[in-house]
């Protein structure tokens, strides 16, 4: 927060001083009423020339400032969203669409003839769900839809902020396109799935602007508590008037209002909306869109995370992790052959073998040091992988730098049985130690690939490449954190049980479902929910949609299908499934911020009592001066100090409300003890210091009143 944002938010904050808007916050509405009452009293005192008029006016001024500061917090939070919304809105600029209309087939022609179409230019806003539009390179896609014909690269930076274009094609899981994004190449035919005003972009704008913000369940519950506290104190102080009159010590209405305003939980009451907006904002800053604030809050409550193995826990592709040479074969020899056999292999597995080989011992001096272009000379025959042979590799002609022999050298890598057959057909055998290695790798869930070389006489099996699913770094630690927070992780994978168990153990997830189908996901969600748990999951495919809809928090990948996005209550624009863990954190932080500031606000009351109550009655009952433990300079200064502290603390806490209370992934017990200490005890002590400091300043000023 800086001065610029403050200045920008100020007009909005002033506009928000409107009873019809403020009635939604019972606490701040009470302050507004109090300010109006005090204004009336001040005017009356001024007209009557009362000696208290100056004091009343100053108090009244600070009460109005309290109202303003309360609105300011909300205005700043909304202002942040406005800026984002404006940039999004520019992408929604008036787009013309090329609508494809089917032409009625004239009577007499057979029904089997292909339909004919004509094109018509219409405004993007006139498109209806189900319309078919054609978009060619250089055009903006007019509305959300699914690609039904063609393939194109699309610039989605307007939404995701990611400048690299993405491919969108008909069929499959990459068919959804978003209105406002631009086709860079080729031509696609799109069926519109969202009416104007209801597109993804529209929803996103509404969301960041906070226009559709509804109170979340916890926010409503908190507001109920705050309303109750407000009523208690209003009753307490309103009944104090006759009691004080009974003792002939009736204070002025201004003082009573000041006491009410100081005691009701204005701090949290003023900051609640800002905390909610800021929570949503933090999510948006991480490129996650939630359909409602409720979803964000639910994320904090999640007790079970359903994580897809591929892409979330592991990199998603099996990677080479080790070379195991056969007895009598040097490791360098194996690595060289493995590399050669994979040089032309463009699959991720193949590339990972080459990468691992190059990391290995053989430097550029060895034969393995051949550059890819050197090794893949034009006369080299590339043997592609096929489902029949289940092997790939190279045939190196005589004279190739990697072929010292006098016949064609064949290098192959492939599945165990396939390579074994290849070798035995060429007089080779599978050495026992290699067989053992193969079994060992399979047993841990890895994939063994055999490497063989044949130089005309006898094929030789050189060793094994160990392919494994690699767990992303840091996952184990994150799962441990989640466990400490009481969140159970379940890994979902299509792998067999052995592989799944190995990965699960390595990543440290609590449970896994192997050979899972999309139906299994749904079943797991239902079972977890049956036992009272809240489940979060990510998904991108159309077949994930039922599970996404059933999950309490469903996060769809932006790269996924529109069915998945429709079913989910959040969309991750970066399509990063790991982010689910961050989303849980943001949800928790939102609640923690609310709880901590509530505690702070309520704890503040203790000091305020000790400031104001003695000041109220010390004139009538000098003994009550003993309660003035802060030693405040005068009754009027005491009351004013409390009111000023009460107003300023809102402004002081705005940055905290927007940033969120520091959140750590720890157990409930340690989170509570820390927050209780900082915001409970701190909230008790801070106002004693603050009020005393303000009083010191005030006592230096010429006496008020």
């Amino acid at each position, binding site marked *: 927060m800086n001065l610029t944002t403050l200045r920008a938010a100020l007009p909005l904050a002033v506009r928000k001083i409107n009873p019809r808007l403020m009635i939604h916050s019972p606490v701040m509405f009470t302050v507004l009423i109090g300010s109006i009452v005090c204004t009336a009293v001040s005017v009356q005192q001024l007209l009557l020339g009362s000696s208290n008029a100056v004091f009343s006016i100053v108090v009244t001024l600070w009460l109005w400032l309290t109202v303003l500061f309360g609105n300011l917090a909300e205005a700043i939070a909304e202002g942040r969203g406005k800026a984002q919304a404006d940039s999004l809105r520019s992408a929604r600029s008036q787009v013309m669409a090329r609508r494809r209309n089917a032409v009625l087939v004239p009577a007499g022609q057979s029904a089997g003839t292909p339909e004919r179409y004509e094109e018509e230019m219409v405004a993007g806003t006139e498109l209806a769900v189900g319309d078919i539009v054609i978009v060619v390179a250089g055009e903006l896609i007019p509305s959300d839809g699914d690609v039904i014909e063609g393939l194109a690269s699309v610039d989605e930076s307007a939404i995701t902020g990611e400048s690299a274009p993405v491919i969108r094609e008909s069929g499959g899981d990459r068919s959804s396109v978003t209105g406002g994004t631009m086709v860079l190449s080729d031509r696609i035919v799109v069926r519109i799935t969202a009416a104007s005003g209801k597109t993804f972009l529209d929803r996103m704008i509404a969301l960041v602007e906070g226009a559709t913000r509804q109170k979340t369940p*916890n926010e*409503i*519950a*908190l507001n*109920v*508590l705050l309303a*109750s*506290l407000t*009523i*208690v*104190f209003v*009753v*307490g102080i309103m*009944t*104090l008037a*006759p*009691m004080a*009159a*009974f*003792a002939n*010590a009736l204070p002025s209405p201004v003082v009573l209002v000041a*006491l009410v305003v100081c005691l009701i939980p204005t701090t949290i009451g003023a900051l609640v909306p800002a905390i909610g907006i800021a929570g949503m904002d933090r999510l948006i800053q991480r490129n996650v869109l939630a359909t409602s604030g409720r979803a964000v*809050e639910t994320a904090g*409550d999640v*007790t079970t995370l359903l994580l897809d193995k591929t892409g979330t826990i592991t990199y998603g592709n099996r990677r080479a992790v080790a070379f195991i040479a056969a007895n009598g074969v040097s490791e360098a020899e194996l690595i060289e052959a493995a590399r050669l056999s994979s040089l032309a292999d463009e699959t991720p597995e193949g590339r990972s073998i080459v990468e691992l080989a190059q990391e290995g011992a053989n430097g550029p001096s060895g034969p393995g040091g051949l550059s890819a272009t050197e090794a893949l000379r034009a006369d080299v025959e590339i043997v592609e992988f096929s489902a029949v042979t289940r092997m790939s590799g190279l045939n190196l002609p005589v004279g190739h730098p990697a072929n010292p022999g006098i016949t064609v050298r064949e290098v192959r890598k492939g599945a165990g049985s396939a390579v074994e057959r290849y070798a035995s057909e060429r007089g080779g055998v599978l050495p026992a130690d290699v067989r053992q290695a193969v079994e060992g790798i399979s047993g841990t869930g890895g994939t063994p690939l055999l490497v063989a070389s044949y130089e005309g006489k006898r094929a030789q099996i050189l060793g094994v490449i160990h392919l494994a699913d690699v767990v992303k770094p840091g996952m184990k630690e994150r799962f441990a954190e989640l*466990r*400490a927070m*009481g*969140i159970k992780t379940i890994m979902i994978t299509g792998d067999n049980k052995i592989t799944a168990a190995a990965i699960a153990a390595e990543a440290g997830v609590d449970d896994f479902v192997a050979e899972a189908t999309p139906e299994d996901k749904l079943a797991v969600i239902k079972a977890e929910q049956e*036992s*009272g*748990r809240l489940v979060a999951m990510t998904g991108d495919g159309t077949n994930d949609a039922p599970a996404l809809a059933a999950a309490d928090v469903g996060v769809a990948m932006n790269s996924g299908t529109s069915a998945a996005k429709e079913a989910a209550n959040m969309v991750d624009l970066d399509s990063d499934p790991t982010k689910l863990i961050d989303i849980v954190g943001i*949800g*928790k932080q*939102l*609640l*923690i911020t609310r*709880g*901590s500031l509530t505690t702070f606000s*309520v*704890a503040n*009351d*203790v000091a305020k009592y000790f400031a104001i*109550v003695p000041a*109220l*009655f010390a004139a009538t*009952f*000098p*003994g*009550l001066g*003993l*309660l003035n433990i802060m030693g405040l300079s005068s009754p009027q200064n005491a009351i004013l100090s409390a009111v000023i502290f009460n107003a300023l603390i809102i402004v002081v806490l705005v940055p905290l409300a927007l940033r969120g209370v520091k959140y750590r992934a720890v*157990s*409930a*017990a340690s989170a*509570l*003890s820390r*927050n*209780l200490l900082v915001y*409970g005890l701190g909230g008790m002590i801070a106002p004693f210091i603050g009020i005393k400091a303000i009083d010191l300043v005030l006592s230096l000023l010429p006496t008020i009143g």
Partner: protein
Amino acid sequence: MELNAFALATQVVVLIVALGALHQPLGAYLAKTFTSHKHLAFERVLYKLSGVEPRADQHWKVYLRSLLAFSVVSIVVLFAFQLLQGVLPFNQGNGTVDPWVAMNTAVSFVTNTNWQTYAPETTLGFGVQMLGLAVQNFLSAAVGLAVVVALIRGLVRAETSNLGNFWVDVTRGALRVLLPISIIGAVVLIITGVIQNWGGTDIHTLVTGAQQTVPGGPVASQEVIKLLGTNGGGYFNANSAHPFENPNAISNLFEVFLILLIPFSLPAMYGRMVGDKRQGYTLLSVMAAFWIISTALMGWALAAFAGTGTSVGEGIEQRFGANGTALFATATTLTSTGAVNAAHDSLPPLGGGLALVNMMLGEIAPGGVGSGLYGLMVLSVVAVFIGGLMVGRTPEMLGKKVGAGQMKLVAVYILVTPTLVLLGTAITVSIPALAAAAPAEGQHGFSEILYAFTSAANNNGSAFGGITSSGPGLATMLALAMFIGRFLPIALVLALAGSFAKQRKIPNTAGTLATHGPLFAVLLGGIVLILTALTYFPALTLGPAAEGLLK
């Protein structure tokens, strides 16, 4: 009057040892009583005669309706009993009770308040005392037990709105819990010297020729349930300061023990019923901490006042001394008992203020029979709510979500008592005719009025006795405060129980806020102080603080 701190500490330790030894066995017995499916033979006869179906599991609304119907009928019966006293037997010559007094008394005894706006010796005979008031002493306490049991069931049960059977719970509470302990307690009281006879009031002519009136009656049997059921309505006007009700230091200590016995055992019942004894221990430790601190402060207030040398000991029973008074006054105001062994009106201002604060805490340390625990449990819901948010989860109380629906009920619950107390006091001080009922000078008169409404709305029943509440105005307002202060919170508690029962149970994880352990106890203690006592801070400054803080 000097305070013997050692004597006070010794008595507190004796109580801690005795209650410490008994609270688990009694808690276990209570839990068994309210969870057993078996009906005793005489209970079955009772159900058959009254047409109750004991196996019916009642929806919370039916449970509440039964409770309200039972209580309203009780009030009407007790009211009629007093009006008709003159024509009924066993009246010891006492006639029809003044209708305002009768109304106030009927409400007072049915709400477990036992505010006494009459002098029993000259108003009521054996008949009304034993068959009217004592019956309500049992039943109103049993109602309190039933409510807390229903609330606990709400937390334990899942996916139902039924909370058990009110008639069965009340019957068991009265017959299986209160009656047997009362019989043992009465015998002990008789042994300590409390009278139990059918003698009525004797008039003796002394040697000097003066005539002395010596009242008699079945005191011990009334006395025991007065304390055990946290009722507080004395057989005599002087209550437990009367030598026939409370003859010596031993009986005094035993009476305090009776006051505290059931309220301090209920957390053990709670822990067992929810299947986690730690839950009970945590609430017990909060209750015990408030009790010990408050007793010590009361001792200090009496001792400090003794040092000022003003009107030493007026209104304080010399037999018990400062420590016996501090112990009794604290226990009676921290529970909803309201029996007194000294005139609270005569406590030093800060001591009287402390008695007020004890009640203003909501009588939760340990509180009335049933009402203390359910009061503390409702405040636990607030602690769970704020604490739950602070750990980043939608708050849960023993696996039940605390959402807007629950908070609404809790929010109204928190509002009821302060509103009744403050509004009642404000109205009374605003109407000179009503304020005149408290004739004490200066702020003490105000304290008397504040005390009356605090006592009534919290269903305590003790009084700053200088106030006269028998006139129609105060009798009605206090009766209203007692009635609303008892039954509105009960209705809210049962609704809360219903809303908890309906929910599915959420399993506990490391991310769940633990509702046991010192951390939660501190949070709960803080919430109790800030949410209840602080609300009254301004009013207290005008009363006891203005009287007691002198420069």
